């Protein structure tokens, strides 16, 4: 069944007849879904006006997880604000870190060495797998299938173990640094990662066997939450949510950062712009992420992992304890921050959720005058009322899942 046909049928279902005189007076039932609700992925609150099972109006309320990350960033040096970005989208913190350091490096006018760029690409794609696999599990769980969720969590656990092996932290990693990465990766880590990469496609096949061609899954997602390419662009959607509508826009391709210009990968694109196509796009991205990691491991160059810019990057810890120069640099950078030129910069990176942009205004001091985060989840949450127009309650759940939002990032 094509999306158009399904949509036409859907409208018949939701068409309401005007009440005649002398019949029952009906009122709409207003329910508050969230902020504590099993399917709202955190603290999203939706106020739904219901006519029976049909959603007449859907109003999202955000802000329950607001911590003032942007303001906090303005009171910290560029180095000290990095851990704040972990807490934006807390299930893909590695990607946020990579986006942040890329933006700061552009502001500073430095570039990370080649090896560091490859390592960042590897960890960013690992973050993408971990985020997408959680999305896959929870989206499918919302629609009622429990098993893929637990299988997905088992896979994600392996990624977290690898992160732990890499930098000691599992969730809030803060591994990339301005000018490179915190530490070089070990051969042991690479071997374990390569093993994961080789096994991953067959694990993906397992999930897809349960979900992709499942008749009920298709009934629940094909033709649900349809948004056309034009409308999707106008709403400012990015990432898989945009590509599901058939717009071939991926920052990794159009403005490559890190090592993406040296890696071969495809950008999966949907067609109909419904939940099913967005699902297919993200499943495709999972396989592509795996492909990227594999290539990066094979092509990983040798060399240093931190840029040679002593006044703009934090010196290595062992040198601080031995060398006067490094100690002075460390002291100045930590207390006062780096001295940089005035100016502003906006750098966007492709995180699992979409386009994560960091905008800095520098007034020449060690702290940003203004830090602004362009959070894809916030934009995606705003499109929910549009997606839920004429939907049933069950479709609202499918739509929340399909836009893939994390409220930590949305509320900042």
């Amino acid at each position, binding site marked *: 069944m094509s999306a158009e046909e399904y949509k036409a049928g859907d409208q018949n279902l939701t068409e309401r007849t005007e009440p005649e005189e002398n019949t029952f007076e009906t009122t709409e039932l207003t*329910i508050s879904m969230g902020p504590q609700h099993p399917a709202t992925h955190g603290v999203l609150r939706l106020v739904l006006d*219901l006519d029976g099972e049909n959603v007449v109006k859907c109003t999202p309320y955000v802000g329950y997880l607001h911590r003032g990350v942007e303001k906090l960033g303005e009171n910290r040096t560029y180095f000290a604000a990095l851990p704040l970005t972990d807490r934006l989208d807390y299930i893909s913190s590695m990607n946020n870190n990579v986006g942040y350091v890329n933006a700061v490096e552009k502001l500073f006018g430095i570039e990370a060495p080649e090896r560091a760029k490859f390592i960042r690409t590897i960890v960013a794609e690992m973050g993408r797998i971990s985020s997408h696999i959680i999305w896959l599990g929870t989206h499918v769980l*919302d629609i009622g*299938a429990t098993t893929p969720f637990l299988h997905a969590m088992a896979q994600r656990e392996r990624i977290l173990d690898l992160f732990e092996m890499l930098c000691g932290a599992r969730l809030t990693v803060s591994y990339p640094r301005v000018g490179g990465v915190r530490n070089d990766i070990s051969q042991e880590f690479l071997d374990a990662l390569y093993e994961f990469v080789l096994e991953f496609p067959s694990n993906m096949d397992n999930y897809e066997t*349960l*979900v992709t061609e499942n008749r009920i899954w298709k009934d629940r997602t094909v033709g649900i939450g349809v948004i056309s390419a034009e409308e999707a662009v106008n709403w400012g959607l990015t990432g898989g949510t945009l590509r599901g509508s058939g717009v071939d826009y991926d920052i990794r391709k159009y403005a490559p950062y890190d090592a993406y210009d040296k890696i071969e990968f495809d950008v999966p694109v949907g067609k109909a712009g419904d939940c099913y196509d967005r699902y297919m796009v993200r499943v495709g991205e999972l396989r592509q992420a795996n492909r990227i990691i594999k290539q990066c491991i094979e092509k990983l160059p040798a060399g240093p992992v931190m840029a040679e810019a002593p006044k703009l990057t934090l010196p290595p810890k062992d040198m601080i304890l031995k060398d006067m120069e490094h100690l002075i640099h460390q002291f100045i950078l930590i207390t006062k921050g780096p001295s940089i030129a005035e100016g502003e910069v906006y750098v966007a990176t492709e995180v699992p959720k979409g386009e994560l942009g960091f905008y800095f205004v520098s007034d020449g001091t060690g702290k940003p005058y203004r830090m602004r985060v362009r959070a894809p989840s916030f934009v995606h949450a705003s499109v929910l009322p549009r997606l839920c127009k004429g939907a049933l309650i*069950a479709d609202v759940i499918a739509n929340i899942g399909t836009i893939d939002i994390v409220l930590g990032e949305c509320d900042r």
Partner: protein
Amino acid sequence: MNDILKAIVGPELAGDVVNIIIILLKTAAVIAVGLLHVAFATYFERKVMAHMQVRLGPREVGPLGLFQPFADGIKLFFKEDIIPQNADKPLFYLAPVIFFASALTSLSVLPFFDGFVVGNINIGLLFLFAMSSLGAYGIVLSGWSSNSKYAFLGGLRSASQVISYEISMGLSLVGVMMMAGSFNLSDIVRAQNHYPLGIFAVPQFLGFFVFVVAAFAETNRLPFDLPEAESELVAGYFTEYSGFRFAMFFLGEYTGMLVMSSIAALCFLGGWALPAFVTANLPGFLAKALGLFCFLIKVYAFMFLYYWVRSTLPRYRYDQLMAIGWKLLIPLALGNIVITGLAKMWFKGLL
């Protein structure tokens, strides 16, 4: 014993009193053993699902986690019983009782092995339908009386779901009744001996299919667990229940599943009946024990199907559920009745 009774109540009533005592004992046995099965059905479900989901399931309480159901029960019993302030209190108290009692009452007409049934009534199947419909009142009333919007929606969903699927389930069993010529479950089991493989599931495959789907919907299990769809309605009709009232809904649901599995085993899968060459040379009690074992295997195989489906399939949407019920199952069941009737007319000697 008889003499004492005759002395106390008089010779006319003695027989009745003995009968009543026997029925009471049977009832107690069925409820006790039935609830034990319900408890372990939850354990069985958790283990089966866990192993399908790369987990281990309960294994801490007792050997292999076997005492987990009792631990859960005790925990629920000691939980605070919260009643919403604006709830309709009498109905709120009554709803879980109706739900649980109707599920338990269904056990009374099920023949567990040859000759063992609490109430051997001639309208056993109709009685089962009546009880499962009555259980829906418990759900609807709980949704209504909780004075909570989520519970209310769950109750509404349940009402429409049960009404739609009750019809297809009733119709799916009409074929069985026609072939057996009786509503009595023991007679239905005996009637199956004359058919290939000794089961009605072969000649009544259409009816069996409709029954299985309707049974899932009747017991509110995935893929039709809309009244309690946790990702949509939090917990559906029992959102506001806690403590032992919640446990009653829980037990009622699993009792309902066991009853449905038993109906499937009795009406379609041959129940306790064993081929004559097996039972012919066995002493009576051993034949009956073997029959009971055979019946239980069928029941638990059907329960396994419940769990298997639950861990495999996503949930249907409300309108899709209705469409399946009215557009697919009811026509199929009606067609099955017509085919069975025609077959019965044409092959009179055979059937």
